[in-house]
């Protein structure tokens, strides 16, 4: 047990790889065995990640916990260094939750090349978990890129008609961002020894050798020259903004989403996009505070454009999946808006909204996938009155629509409300723009629901659709539970976020907690 506790992050992150290696030895004809195995690995992965939630020390949620540090490439100063704080805790758990659901949803959907499919899913899972637990920039970058390959194959092999185009676009786009990110990392890497030599307190803790330690970079943040920060911020920005994706770097997303198989879309929307926002939170903000402040207008502008533009384009989509994909652009705009409000409410809301987006958009992609499996089309005009033939499905879809548009009592509300509050503290107009986005979001989602679910069944092809089966209900129920949990009692989530968020704000705006009375003395959901 002690061993498990000391190495829990490694075990959680590498269990899928171990499962994949075993999977490779299975006979590819034995599809049931492969499916059962992949599901089992994923579910075990989820179960062994649960202790993280219970063992996580809330008192020190801004400190890295479950840390493991082993030398790796000593000549470079790269280490195998993993650990999580409150922010990564939530994202790790989101990943381990969505992983099994995505895998379970593929049970019937994937019929050919089953073995490879599950192998890639497991690899992808490991890569994503690695990104969220890495505290070494080199290790982070390795995971960040490793994950491109399985996703490329998932889209390229099991995707829709334009899969090759979508897959290569996804790969090149994200790689383009990552290589610039790498240059930014290198610039920091070479800057560190000089700064550490001048500041004994940093040298004491991290030494003066070159290092990729993220915490060491956090420590040198105040001593980085502003124009140096600018350049690195831009390099990081391209890398992360493409992943988020922020307007105008979003064009890969609709293609990738539409062509990807359902599980791929779920993972893509649910987890992959969070890697970009996580990058901003973990690296750009705390390491480059001056540049962050300087770029706020640009970031906010792009976020607001993303919110409005994503929503408007979503509204006009004839294809359900594409609609949900563009809604992602809009929702991720919210996340970025909250983050760059640079106050505790904004950041808390931003992180909660990342989780929410994973839950509701993940669920919406599952829902679209279910209907696609039955009808092999996603054209909205092909549907109508589905609630008559698929009542359970209609309820689930309704709940998730409400969650997505931010109805109170459901998760979306908490995130959006906190973000708007954060925005309001800074600038009225940001909040107005965000509010407009919420209204538009309600419009396209409700309109989608109305066109597909309500009314009479007019298309004869829809008359005999089967309602959700047990497996499909099992895939979606955990997400519904999460949606209600966050909607009704978000305090546990805010509790783990409070300290790390305050730490980031204190880094970026050292004067925030001293002067300047706050508009809202109490934050939503904060335990009293």
């Amino acid at each position: 047990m002690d061993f498990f506790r000391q190495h829990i992050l490694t075990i959680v992150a590498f269990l899928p790889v171990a499962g994949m290696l075993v999977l490779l030895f299975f006979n590819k004809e034995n599809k049931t065995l492969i499916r059962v195995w992949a599901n089992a690995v994923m579910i075990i992965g989820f179960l062994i990640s649960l202790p993280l939630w219970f063992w996580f020390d809330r008192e020190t949620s801004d400190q890295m916990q479950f840390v493991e540090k082993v030398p790796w490439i000593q000549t470079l100063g790269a280490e195998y260094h993993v650990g999580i704080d409150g922010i990564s805790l939530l994202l790790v758990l989101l990943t381990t939750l969505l992983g099994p659901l995505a895998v379970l949803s593929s049970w019937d959907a994937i019929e050919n090349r089953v073995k490879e499919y599950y192998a890639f899913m497991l690899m992808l899972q490991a890569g994503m978990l690695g990104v969220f637990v890495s505290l070494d920039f080199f290790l982070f970058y390795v995971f960040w890129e490793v994950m491109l390959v399985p996703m490329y194959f998932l889209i390229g092999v099991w995707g829709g008609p334009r899969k090759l185009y979508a897959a290569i676009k996804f790969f090149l786009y994200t790689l383009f961002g990552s290589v610039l990110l790498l240059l930014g990392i290198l610039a920091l890497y070479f800057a560190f020894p000089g700064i550490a030599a001048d500041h004994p307190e940093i040298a004491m803790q991290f030494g003066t050798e070159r290092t990729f330690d993220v915490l060491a970079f956090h420590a040198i943040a105040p001593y980085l020259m502003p124009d140096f920060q600018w350049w690195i911020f831009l390099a990081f920005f391209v890398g992360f903004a493409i992943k988020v994706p922020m307007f105008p770097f979003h064009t890969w997303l609709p293609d990738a989403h539409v062509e990807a198989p359902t599980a791929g879309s779920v993972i893509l929307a649910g987890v992959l996009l969070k890697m970009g926002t996580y990058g901003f939170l973990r690296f750009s903000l705390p390491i480059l505070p001056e540049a962050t402040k300087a770029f706020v207008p640009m970031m906010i502008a792009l976020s607001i454009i993303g919110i409005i533009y994503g929503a408007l384009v979503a509204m006009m989509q004839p294809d359900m999946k594409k609609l949900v994909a563009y809604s992602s652009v809009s929702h991720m705009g919210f996340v970025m808006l909250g983050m760059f409000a640079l106050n505790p409410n904004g950041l808390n809301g931003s992180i909660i909204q990342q989780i929410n987006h994973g839950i509701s958009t993940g669920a919406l992609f599952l829902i679209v996938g279910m209907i696609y499996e039955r009808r092999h089309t996603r054209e909205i005009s092909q549907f109508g009155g589905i609630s008559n033939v698929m009542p359970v499905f209609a309820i689930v879809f309704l709940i998730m629509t409400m969650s997505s548009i931010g109805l109170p009592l459901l998760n979306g509300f908490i995130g959006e409300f906190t973000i708007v509050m954060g925005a309001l503290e800074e600038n009225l107009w940001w909040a107005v723009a965000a509010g407009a986005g919420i209204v538009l979001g309600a419009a396209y989602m409700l309109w989608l629901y109305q066109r597909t679910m309500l009314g009479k069944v007019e298309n004869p092809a829809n008359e005999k659709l089967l309602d959700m089966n047990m497996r499909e209900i099992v895939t979606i129920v955990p997400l519904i539970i999460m949606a209600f949990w966050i909607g009704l009692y978000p305090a546990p989530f805010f509790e783990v976020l409070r300290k790390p968020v305050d730490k980031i704000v204190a880094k970026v705006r050292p004067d925030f907690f001293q002067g300047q009375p706050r508009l809202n003395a109490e934050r939503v959901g904060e335990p009293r």
Partner: protein
Amino acid sequence: MDQFFRMQDIGAIVPELELAVFGMFLLIFDLMVKTKRRLGYIALGGLAISGVFLYQLRNVEYIAYGGSLVLDPLAMFFKVIFLIAAALSIAISLRYLDIERENHGEYYALILFATMGMMFMAGAVDLVTLYIGLETMAIATYVLVGFLRSNQRSNEASMKYFLLGAFSSGILLYGMSLLYGIAGSTRFDDIAAALDQRLLGNPTDPISLMAMITLSAGIFFKIAAVPFHQWTPDAYEGAPTSITAYMSVAVKAASFAMMVRVFMIAIYPLRPQWVTILAAVSILTMTIGNIAAITQSNVKRLLAYSSISHAGYILIGLIAGNDTGLTAVGLYLLIYTFTNIGTWAVIVALRRKDVIGEHIDDMAGLYYKHPTAAVLMLIFLLSLAGIPPTAGFIGKYYLFAAAIETGHNTLAVVAVLNAVISVYFYLRIVVSMFMRDATEKTGLTFAPGLTMALGIAFIFTMWIGIYPDPFIALARRAIPLGF
């Protein structure tokens, strides 16, 4: 030092001598042995013995032949690369030559001779020694390129390669003669000292610049850098695939070994001038190599252009010119040797009795017929593209790091963008292998040697990718002191 020859000097070149002797024996055996494949095994044995001799010299640092040849970690490192490249190339040739019906003993002898020439190049610190090593390598390679006597393409390639190669050697010699004129000596350190003196008086001394430019041009030909790269696609396409593999790693590595010595010692005083030239050439080479590769549908030509672009990346190491940069040159070449031989091994396997197996379509659906080979090819291609956790990433990382460390930021940005472009055409092969249906033409021929070469290439590609420490240490040790 002044004494030109001492008995112990022979000890310094035992590995090379051994190869020469083996090569000649092979020519004699050729008359006696019917199954030519056995000669291949003998050649492998010769390389192994040479490796053993080399191993015994591992800690020796020695200046032989009155200062024209050195035994130092740099030479040692590159010699190891040459031996590995030669051994792996022979391993993938055995079956291939049978299929081409051109299995002759000279083939193996020529590879040994070429390897010997390269080993002299790596150790040469004198223009004459360098040139003789270079020509020994080059002439053997010209013949090998045209080894498929009945194949028109092979003949054409050989002729082109020979003409352009001879031309470039001429230009190189011109530069060398100018340097000799300046220094009155052919030794690198004398040349450096003389250049120093000369530039002290006149920083833009036209003769020194002329010498540098002609010398660089000759070397750019050898490493296939833009604008002297035109011979590469033709030569690579026409040559027997196993020789293409050999050329793309060994000849390239040898040329870079020569380049490191010449640029970092002999014409080091001209560094400010040549850095500018190299930076321009590097950018052009990367970009043009990659862009030209995009449109190729012949895999051999595609990889030829890709190898051009790789030369462009490696130049970054020399431009940086510091500890990191030179480590990167060695490390990258080592990694490139394993990865590229692995890639070519798969292409060699594509050649079957009645299938030429060079078109990208010939790989369609390879995954369905030979899953392991296809996955290995995927790994090699990802390594060439520089995606972690393969070795190629470590190599690229080191080069980019060197560029950033020395403040060549624009170069670094161009290089990383090129890495992105290159992914596009590497993925075209992946698409063909994994995402298209197999055709009748798809298929591979395997032989024990080929399988072994694939295995070794795979192991090192992953090993260096995941735990590169020992290899970085080797490459770093190889940097000559004083930089």
